[in-house]
């Protein structure tokens, strides 16, 4: 019942946002900001088009590779810093500092090294994602209650059994939170790279549309990316909550 009411309230807010959009469109004019209806009708043509598909595929490729790199390196660094106390203490403030820096300033360096290639986008996206994954993995390992390790020993588990049956389940919810945040910021990194300098991708397309004053296309791309990120985040959150309940 309350869940029902909450769903209704949330829907009301979505409707309110669409109405504000409509009002704003009226106010600033259709060329600066097209209203919801024209945008959605444009969306139905544009999203199935080949141009959208090609650029979405370019972004997806870069994003997938960047994510793979961010997850691999992030987990490795996190495990190392979590298991080795000293390296964790040395590295944590460095990672935290890097995390809150405007990393966009570093993109020209990557461009100078890689040029306008796929690798540039991938590396820049991965730089964003590695940090939260590493930080949260490290925290997860450090936060394992000591009593779990003692229990594993009193139960005479072999190291592999201890890792599989105790350490992994104890750390997984927090590690997953790191992977979720890593997902978000890696996507942002790839899009920023495409917006600044790129030959393809949705970020490139949106800047291209801006210079051509194609506002409908800009908003369409923004909405598509928004929806993708929101849905992915919801799924990852849902998995996280389920695991939390179990542990």
């Amino acid at each position, binding site marked *: 019942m309350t869940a029902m009411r*909450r769903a209704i*309230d*949330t829907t*009301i*807010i979505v409707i309110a946002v669409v109405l504000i959009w409509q009002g*704003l469109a009226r106010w*600033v004019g259709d060329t*600066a*900001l097209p209203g919801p209806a024209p945008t959605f009708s444009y969306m139905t043509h544009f999203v199935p088009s080949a141009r959208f598909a090609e650029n979405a595929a370019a972004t997806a490729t870069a994003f997938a590779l960047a994510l793979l790199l961010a997850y691999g390196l992030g987990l490795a660094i996190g495990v190392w810093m979590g298991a080795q106390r*000293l390296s964790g*203490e*040395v*590295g944590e*403030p*460095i990672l*935290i*500092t890097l995390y*809150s*820096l*405007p*990393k*966009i*300033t*570093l*993109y*020209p*360096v990557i*461009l*100078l*090294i890689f040029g306008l290639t796929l690798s540039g986008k991938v590396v820049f996206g991965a730089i964003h994602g590695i940090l939260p994954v590493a930080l949260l993995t490290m925290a997860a390992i450090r936060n394992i209650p000591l009593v779990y390790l003692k229990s594993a020993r009193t139960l005479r588990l072999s190291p592999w059994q201890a890792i599989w049956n105790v350490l992994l389940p104890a750390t997984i919810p927090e590690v997953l939170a790191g992977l*979720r945040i890593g*997902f*978000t910021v890696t*996507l*942002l990194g790839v*899009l*920023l790279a495409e*917006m*600044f300098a790129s030959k393809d991708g949705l*970020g490139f397309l*949106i*800047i291209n*549309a*801006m210079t051509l*004053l194609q*506002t409908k296309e*800009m*908003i369409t*791309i*923004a909405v598509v*990316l*928004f929806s993708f*990120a*929101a849905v*992915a*985040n*919801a799924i990852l*959150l849902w998995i996280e909550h389920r695991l939390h309940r179990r542990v």
Partner: protein
Amino acid sequence: MTRAGWIRLLVIVAMIGALELACRLNFIDHRVMIPPSQMATALITMLASGQLNDDIVRTLGVIAIAVALSVVFGFALGLIIHALPRLRAALDPFFATYYAVPVFIFYPVMIAIFGLSLVPIVLMGVATAIVAMIIATLNGLDRIPRVLTKVARVHRMGRLATALQLQLPAAAPYLFTGVKLSVSYAFIAVIAAEFILAPAGLGRDIANAYADFNNRRMYALMLLVLLIATVVNAGLHAWDLRWAKRRGARPS
């Protein structure tokens, strides 16, 4: 300083030294990167000449405006949302998703609406920072111990005195965390916005220097931006830690 602190310093110095050496020995092409020492000297000359003053003032000013707007309105919105539990429940899914979606992708739309001026940049800064302040405010208000309202009545305090002398100080550490995040987020958003497209500003300077193949200028500016961001973030972080330590982690 702790042992880890010394090692950290050593690691950082060693890394900068290695970079210096690699550049000097041409392991790294000078068209890709210049030695850190040259970045620093270039930055010092540029700062001394005063040519960067306008852009520094402009960028930091925009960030300050964005932070001020985010903190004031974020706090006010937090108060309102906290007072309306039903609205809060309805907004919860949006707060949970907000930092998961690339809000920045709306920057070009803002430019289309407001033109290429300071307005879209400030708006991007606010859009990125304000929700952190709202969430921090809600969190702080949630954590005001209920017994404080009873204490207030024992001391016969009015609504305003209770709010200013008991509730605000009780929530203050959480509010400060909100301010800290707002600064950090606004910084990132404003620099990124300038980078992508802006009439002027430090971010734009870097992008221009890149386009002009002016590596000395580009790396000097990069160093400046990263130094400012690091110092500001580290200062706020240290303050936050001191506060948290004084207040302790209290069971409520």
